[in-house]
């Protein structure tokens, strides 16, 4: 086991140039060289997926509380937003709203389990609750290498959470949850974390290669004395270590590429979920900034969780019952639609602000905006609470990617939400005919 250290390779990679610190990141990848970045003839294509739990109010058309229902009235081009999505009115040229869609394989699941599968479309395996790859990570596999961070995973609660109540929307190719970040300060550091304080991080990134080499050697020497099945398990370990080594190497390639200068003073990095208005503003500001600076092109944001969550008390900000779950359950009761509708309106306001910022940011030479090349999926995996059908959903942006907007499209319950995923993948020029249980692209949006 006296294998010589693989020093030369790393020394070469590090180069002589001034190195810039990069935080130690999950999914930090790039094979692109500096010159390739943002000089291609095509503008970057981006994806942002946002989910909130517990569903919305769905009063019938004759219900006096219909104005507090999430879905618009009317259909097709001839639709009217209710009070809930009114904040999006100025943006409707860039927004499509859908009803009827859901993940057929997830319908028999417990209503509270479907946060895990919002972007994966698969029933969790019985007993093991094993999941499959999520839409954003699927896209990150294809496009993630073009940017410093292959993707960015956010949630109000951070980490991964328990199975069936995860606090992240993103799942790796193996179906493992990708840990989410929740603190604006940490997110900012991950995005732009180079200053004097992170000199340490820089040194650590350089050490990581050597550490992983050592770990690999240890595993190889250990393996020799093990049974066959144990050896195969150790090989799984080694494959994972090698994969991380590659990520470290790619991260080191980025060391010579300067990060954009970013003024953080306008963002409340100290905001936390206990103050929802400031917190949501900060989270959307960071998402916007990540896209604007092309640090990443793919993100997911789970706003709340079906399990215990710091976002449960968010409705309290409006003077409502500070229990989102309870509010959702009472949506069908007298006055209930108005209560949850007001909260959904509050969240739609934050979404509108985010979309507006993307729209106001020009990109390229032909008068396009960031929003024209960004797909923003927003919705819940319940219609009314506990019901895994008729997800409230909207898709914004992507005009340059061939999407048509300003309509309310109704689908029957047979149409899988995955059809929308297929349309989104195709709009992002990812060659695919299907995603999980899709039956084709979604009619009417492109």
């Amino acid at each position, binding site marked *: 086991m006296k294998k010589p250290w693989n020093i030369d390779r790393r020394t070469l990679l590090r180069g002589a140039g001034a190195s810039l610190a990069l935080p130690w990141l999950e999914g930090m990848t790039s094979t692109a060289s500096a010159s390739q970045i943002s000089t291609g003839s095509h503008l970057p294509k981006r994806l942002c997926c946002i989910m909130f739990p517990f569903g919305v109010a769905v009063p019938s058309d004759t219900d006096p509380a219909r104005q507090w229902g999430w879905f618009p009235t009317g259909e097709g081009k001839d639709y009217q937003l209710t009070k809930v999505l009114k904040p999006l009115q100025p943006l409707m040229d860039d927004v499509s709203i859908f009803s009827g869609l859901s993940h057929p394989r997830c319908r028999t699941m417990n209503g509270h389990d479907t946060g895990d599968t919002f972007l994966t479309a698969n029933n969790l395996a019985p007993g093991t609750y094993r999941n499959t790859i999520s839409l954003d990570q699927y896209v990150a596999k294809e496009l993630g290498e073009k940017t410093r961070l292959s993707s960015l995973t956010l949630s109000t609660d951070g*980490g991964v959470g328990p199975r069936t109540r995860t606090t992240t929307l993103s799942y790796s190719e193996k179906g493992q949850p990708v840990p989410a970040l929740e603190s604006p300060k940490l997110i900012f550091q991950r995005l732009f974390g180079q200053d004097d304080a992170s000199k340490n991080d820089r040194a650590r990134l350089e050490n990581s290669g050597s550490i992983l080499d050592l770990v690999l050697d240890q595993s190889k020497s250990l393996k020799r004395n093990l049974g*066959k099945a144990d050896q195969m398990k150790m090989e799984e370990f080694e494959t994972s270590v090698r994969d991380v080594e590659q990520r470290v190497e790619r991260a080191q390639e980025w060391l010579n590429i300067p990060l954009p200068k970013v003024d953080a003073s306008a963002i409340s990095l100290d*905001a936390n979920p*206990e*103050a929802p208005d400031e917190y949501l503003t900060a989270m959307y500001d960071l998402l916007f900034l990540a896209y604007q600076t092309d640090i990443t092109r793919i993100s997911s944001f789970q706003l709340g969780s079906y399990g215990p969550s710091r976002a449960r008390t968010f409705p309290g900000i409006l003077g409502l019952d500070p229990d989102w779950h309870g509010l959702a359950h009472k949506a069908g009761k007298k006055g209930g639609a108005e209560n949850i509708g007001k909260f959904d309106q509050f969240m739609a306001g934050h979404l509108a602000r985010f979309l507006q910022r993307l729209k106001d940011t020009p990109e390229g030479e032909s008068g396009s905006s960031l929003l024209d090349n960004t797909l923003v999926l927003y919705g819940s995996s319940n219609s009314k609470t506990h019901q895994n059908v008729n997800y409230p959903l909207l898709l914004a942006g992507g005009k340059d990617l061939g999407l048509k907007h300003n309509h309310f499209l109704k689908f029957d319950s047979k149409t899988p939400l995955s059809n929308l995923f297929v349309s989104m993948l195709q709009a992002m020029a990812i060659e695919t005919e299907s995603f999980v249980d899709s039956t084709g692209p979604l009619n009417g949006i492109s």
Partner: protein
Amino acid sequence: MNSLSKKGLILFLVLTNGNPEDVAAIDFEKEIEPVLERVCGECHGPEKQKADLRFDTLSPDFLKGGDADTWHDALDQINLGEMPPTKAKHQLTAGERQALTEWLNDSLNAVAAAKRNVGGRVNSRRLTRYEYANTMRDLLGIEYDFSRELPPEPTSPEGFLNNGRTLEMSPTQIETYLAVARQALDIAIVTGEKPEVFSVNASASAIGRLPKKKDGGAVPVNPEFVLDVPDFPRSGEFEITVTASSKVPEGHGYPKLEVWLGCVPGIIHVPRKMVGEVSVKAPQDNPETFTFRGRMEDFPQAGRTRFGKNIDFHGVIVMLDFFDAEGNELHYPHKRYVSPPPKPKKKGDPVPPLPSPPTKPFPDIEIESVHFVAPSLTSWPPPSHLALLNPDNTNYKETKRARADLEAFMSRAFRRPVSGKDIDPYLQLFEKIRPLSESYPEAMKETFASVLVSPRFLHLIDTRDNFALAERLSYLLWSTAPDQRLLTLAKQKKLRNPDTLADETNRLMNDPRSSEFINRFSDQWFDLDALNRVAVNPEFFPEFDNELKTAMQTETREYFGEILREDLSCLELIDSNWTMVNRALATHYGLGHRPRGPDFERVKLAKEDRRGGILGQGAFLLSNSNGEASHPIKRAVWILDRLLDSPPAPPPPDVPELDPEQADLAGLTLKDQLAAHRKKESCRSCHENIDPWGIALENYDAIGLFRTVAPLRSGEKTSRDHSPPKLDPVTKLPHGETLNGADDLKAFLLKEKRQHLAQSIVKRLATYALGRSLDLSDRETIEALTERFQSNDFRLRGLIVDLVNSDLFQHSSARS
């Protein structure tokens, strides 16, 4: 302890030489095949394949045919008397039964012996999330949320999280292990001067909700105690000490004190997080001091950005909240204040009279003092630092110092002594990193981090030596690394001595750390996690407090713990005249005897309490409901799988859920719906064996409360004209026994299913202890353990000692 176990257990394994041809004493084609065709063929043949089983296509070649596991299941069914069914037309003659079981046994033994040499078994495994967290905590000597970013483990087919085959590894995990190691080492190893310590002490609340005017009235106000901490460190451990006493009237429970830490960024929200809670039992003349700890960075802190316009205070606040034993916030009826004082409804109306003071006695908490200090340091550098970078080594040259520090750390991290050769590569890493690092401690942090990502740290490696045995034992009972004593015994090669091993097993069971075994094993065996997957619908149970779920989990854990600690018979899992509850849960159940506080106590149950055994516990009843209604099928499957080790076959793909709105089910009670469902041919063969086990428990609703009337059906309104139908828990088991409710079910299990219970307990325990699924070659040992367990009156401690002393646990027979 158990005198039997001291002697050590000799478990015989019938060793064949691994050649299947040697056991061809019984001719399959002549003696077995015709019997299978005649007796089993009708249901498991070309016409029908109940339970997806068809004998005429199973290969009688156990080694190459790939059907050995199916044959094994068949043998179990025959041995347990499940097959052929008693009411079946064709039965086995005594001679046929003997030939069949002998043939199955011999063939299975032969294939097991042959398989042992193929190495098809995963014996080494990585640490689970919780084992990793415990091990890191003990190794580094700091409190930290080590597992927060690690993905949760997938469960094995038997419901366990520590199965080597299902435990996976991914790049994300490797990255997380390295990141966590670095973060934790940054806390454990310190550089620089001792940080400034902030300390605040108070004996009176900074602000209260008591109005200033004393002429308010007698409407009780909620007391709270607030301690302002204007200056504080943004990270590091803090300590809050509270000295308090209580006044508790006769018949009341002990009041509860909650300690929170938070800040005041805005008007509406006070972001805060609970630090801890205690039941205050100390009388007023003898107050008690409680200590709470946490890390500043885990709690909300005021930011540099201001949210509220009128808030000047930018510190953190310690808040104490007071509750009675039932969980209601305490009031101050004696303070005779209201907040705000009563006002007339409109101008000109008379001022409303002050409410009269309550006359009944009330519980109360008196706070003597609250002390906040951060960072809380016992010494500088802290003990964690001194344990990792030994000050005695500082006189050495750096390389020698690094070697000494590494040796100490690595032998603890790898749970066995390390040689100079083991240390060399890590020392080389240190020497490579050192010139790039600012200081020795910084370079050592990185070197230690590499140890913490090493497979020798992250895995329990099946090295077949004394150290592997020590490791397996301590991860079984403590879910963490072996202590010094175990390692010393391993080093002296004494651990394989059956008496020593029995003593050590008992020592570990007696240690408070065995709560890890109690909690982890009962969580996984009984699937207590399922409580968190059920959302209680507040429309059905508006009064249900979600904290009861935690109490229910604790009840079942503590119940299992009591059986272990007191060395009771495991048959008490089925029925007993006691349980473990706290006040809130006892109140929920409506028990005659209620503990006085939030701590769990053993209470005696009366017949009319209608509890006793795990089937009367909220954890089982609620987690196998859907949060609205009881779910007899889920409950039945749980009993068959978790208690009787006879899980029913999974439902065929695409079976629809029972839809009560469906025309033929509308208006039927749940029991009748299930009966209608069983009439369908495709459902019957499985469900006639499933449903009865759950129907017998229909007297317990979704949240585990006893009821005697049937629940309302969907869409049905209460009506004065219709009194709801009386609940009918009478059901008939497949063998023909009639059960009338839970008591009959329990009696039946204790009388008729002892063999199943014993085998189930042994198999679950062995599966957990070994961290792998059991296979054919484990069969004989499992049977021997089961027999002893049964003859030893189902005592759990004896079983654990026997298991640890068995060839399975010691891996003495499974050498590949």
